[in-house]
Each structure stands twice: as C-alpha cells, then as structure tokens.
C-alpha cells in the first residue's frame, strides 16, 4: 500500500495587493484630514438646519465652556462660561496663523499696558513665539508671561483646570469702550490687526470680521443658559462686531 502523500504547500499569501489598497487609503486620509484642534473645554454644539460650513481660514472662534460634572456626578457651574479665543489666519499667504497671533498678542498687550500703567505686562520675543504656537488661549493678561514660559505639557495641565480663576478670559457686561474689559481688548486687537492687514492689501480677514459675519464663530454648549451666552453676544455688540455666526451641528427638518 502506497502512503498518501500530503503535498506541502507554501502558506505565503501575496500581500502586494493588500498593501496597494492600504497605501491608497492612507493617502486619502492624509490628504483629506484636518486635525482635531486642541480645545481646553469640550462642548456639544446644538444642531440646526443651516448648511453653511465653518471656514477654515480667517476665523476667530470664541469658545464658551459649558458646565462640568463634579465628583458626585452633579452639575458643576463653576467652570461654566469661561471664554477662550482661537485665531486662524490664512495658510497660503504671509498672513499665516502664527504671524496673526504674534501681531494680535503685541497689539493686545500694548493696549492692556496703556490701561494698566501700574502693573504692565512685559513679554520677551521667545514668549511671543510661544504664543503664536497656541491654537486656543484663555488666560488673564497678568498670567501670560508665566504661562508662556512653561513647557507645552505644563500649559495643558494649567488649562485643564477650568475652575482655576486665572483660566478663561475675563468678561463682564461693560459697555464703555474707554474702559474695555480683557475680552474686549483681545477682540479689538484682532480687529485692529485685520484692519492693518487690509491696508497692506490683504482684505480677506477684515471683510470676514466686519462685513459678512463669517469671521467670528461663537461656539457654546447646548445646555449653557442664555444669560451666559448673552454676555458674549452683548460684548460683541458693544464692539460693533454685530454680525457673526453661531457654530452648530447638522440636523434635519424632522427633528
């Protein structure tokens, strides 16, 4: 009796095709992706039927933090209504985010020092550079030099604690532009920088801010009470930046 010989077959699978597919997919994701921006507070925006997309360039985002949850699972209102600002320039020009942020910081600090002659804020060039790398900021002016000296990990640690009183740009219901609050100083600085760029031939930012209302986006949590939001809207009205957009997610008419 002859033994049945089991033929030994090689188990090698040709992975070339698979590799082709994955490389294609990878290329697709790399080209289409815009990275999630680091934001100090996570908010769930309400949904609306509006289909206008958020622009990626020439945009000022004002983030209003929502209420947190404390250790017992209760609503923690102490972290609610903290203001953060993010400035994005245009990548394809000299008007890049970094340049805009530097200009905004210098402008804002100069204005702040004019109003607070007794304790001015002094920044080194390195600190200004560090600021231009921040996507979103929200801190008292007086804390800025110390904050900008820190390593990125330490900065994140500071921004994580929203209940810390130094975190968040101070805001009140001031309507007197001779004595602006810190939020108003920042917004005015951003506006001035945009206007200065307009004189240099870059009109996009200034027109987005003033004319169309595309340039300012207010982002807030859906459960935040209107009294908190109203403060921000009122400040923008005082600054005569009364056209702006509210960030929402998409929903259908049936909802």
């Amino acid at each position, binding site marked *: 009796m002859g033994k049945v010989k089991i033929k030994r077959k090689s188990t090698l699978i040709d992975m070339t095709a698979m590799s082709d597919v994955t490389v294609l997919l990878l290329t697709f994701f790399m080209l289409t992706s815009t990275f999630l921006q680091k934001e100090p507070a996570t908010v769930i925006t309400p949904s*609306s039927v509006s289909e206008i997309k958020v622009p990626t360039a020439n945009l000022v985002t004002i983030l209003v933090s929502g209420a947190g949850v404390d250790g017992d699972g209760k609503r923690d209102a102490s972290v609610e209504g903290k203001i953060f600002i993010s400035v994005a320039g245009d990548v394809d020009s000299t008007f890049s985010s970094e340049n805009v942020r530097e200009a905004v910081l210098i402008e804002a600090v100069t204005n702040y020092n004019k109003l607070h002659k007794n304790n001015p804020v002094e920044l080194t060039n390195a600190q200004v550079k560090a600021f231009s790398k921040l996507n979103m900021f929200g801190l008292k002016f007086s804390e800025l030099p110390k904050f900008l000296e820190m390593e990125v990990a330490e900065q994140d640690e500071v921004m994580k604690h929203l209940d810390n009183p130094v975190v968040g740009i101070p805001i009140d219901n001031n309507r007197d532009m001779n004595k602006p609050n810190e939020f108003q100083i920042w917004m005015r600085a951003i506006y001035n920088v945009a206007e200065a760029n307009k004189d240099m031939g870059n009109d996009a930012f200034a027109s987005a801010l003033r004319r169309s209302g595309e340039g300012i986006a207010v*982002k807030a949590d859906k459960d935040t009470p209107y009294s908190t939001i109203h403060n921000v809207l009122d400040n923008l009205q005082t600054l005569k930046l009364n056209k702006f957009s509210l960030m929402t997610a998409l929903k259908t008419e049936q909802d």
Partner: protein
Amino acid sequence: MAQIEQSDKGGKGKKGAQKKMAIHVDFTPMVDMNMLLITFFMLCTTMIKSQTLQIALPSNEKVEEAQQNKTKQSEAITLILDTERDADGNVMMDLETGKPKHTVYYYEGKPVVDDENKDGIIDNPNIKVEKFIGNSNTGETFGIRNILHNRNKQVLEKINVQKEKWRNKELTDEEYQALAKDIRNDSTLVRPVVIIKAGPNASYESLISALDEMQINQISRYQIDNINGVDSALIISYKTLNGIK
C-alpha cells in the same frame, strides 16, 4: 523576509543556462504598518465639519425714538424661550420624547397687561405656550412651527412652487436661492415680524432651535431682543393662572 526561490527541477537544466528566480517580498509588515497609520488618521480627523448659523444683531448704540423701526402690531409675534431645569441647573428631559424640556411662550401683537384688582397678576395675559416639536414625514407641522407656518403662509406657498420647480431640475440652485430670497423679502405679502427673547434659564439650544424655525419657515424679519419686566410678568401671571409652579 524577502526570499529568492530557485526553481530546482531535478537538475536537468542545461549547464550555463540562467536559472529562473522568483522573488517573493513579504508585504505583511508593510500592511501592518499601513493599517496602523490609517487607524491613526481615521481617529484624528474630523470628517464632519461644523455648520454655522449666521446672525446679525443691532449695535448697542442708543437709537433715538424717532429713528426706531416700529413694527406693525398685526405683524408682530414675540417668542419667549425658557428651559426647565432642576435644582442643580441640569436641563430636564421629557421622558416621553427624550428631548430637553424647552418651552416657547408667545404672544401676538402687544402684550395685554391689565390688572384691575391690583394683585400683581395680569388678569388675562394674551400669552400662549407651545413647544418645539417639528413636523411629520408628510410635512404636517406641529408646535411653534405650526404657529409660525400659518403666520407666514403666503411666503411659504410661493416658495414651495419654486421649490417644486427646483426639485424637477427646472431651476438651478442659484436661481432658486435668488427667487426664494426675493419672495422672503416681498413686502406685498403678509409676513410676520418675530421677536425672539430668551429667558435667563433658556439654554443655548433653545435659542438655536428658535433661529432654526425662522429658517425653516422662511421668515426674513426676526430679531433677538432682551427679556423685559413685562415679559416676566406675563409668564408669571400665566403660570399662576394655570396652576403651574
């Protein structure tokens, strides 16, 4: 990893003839690495971009009485938004629908503020209550949408005619948008002026929902205003008269 196999067939080949060599490169690690990268990019990207709702508010400068735009009483409808919250300030949910409890108080024209017996409670507040419900699949409207829909019927009917044409590809997107805009701003039609007021407890979501209703009902004239004493008095009176806490 990359091995070169020699096909050896009994050594019958002629001497000096070139041996056939098959080159196998094992792509498995390459695929592994690619998959990891894909996973990374998939998790780090935002495919859905946020939408925005554009609004324009009046500036805070004082306006003279004579320069103020007066709204015709017959056209005005005021919405006052409120959201029910528990003692901690959490938004309460409606157990049946699973939606947050937003309430829309509204009155048409001027508020009625007669208080004959001077008990601080308005006798017949002309205020009514609705909710954000939306519409059914067949296009029936409910809640506050129904109220606004009926007020803006003439505009909506005209726009629907154009919308049908646009659906049948008789109009391009731009043409349709331009026509719809003209109809929305056509002063010969009966159009409401909506004043949206949000109470201090009203959540941001309810404000957006109210602005949404303006879009859905093609209302071109609306304004966000601050709540005042009369509005609060109306709501308190309504609640007292109807036995709501």
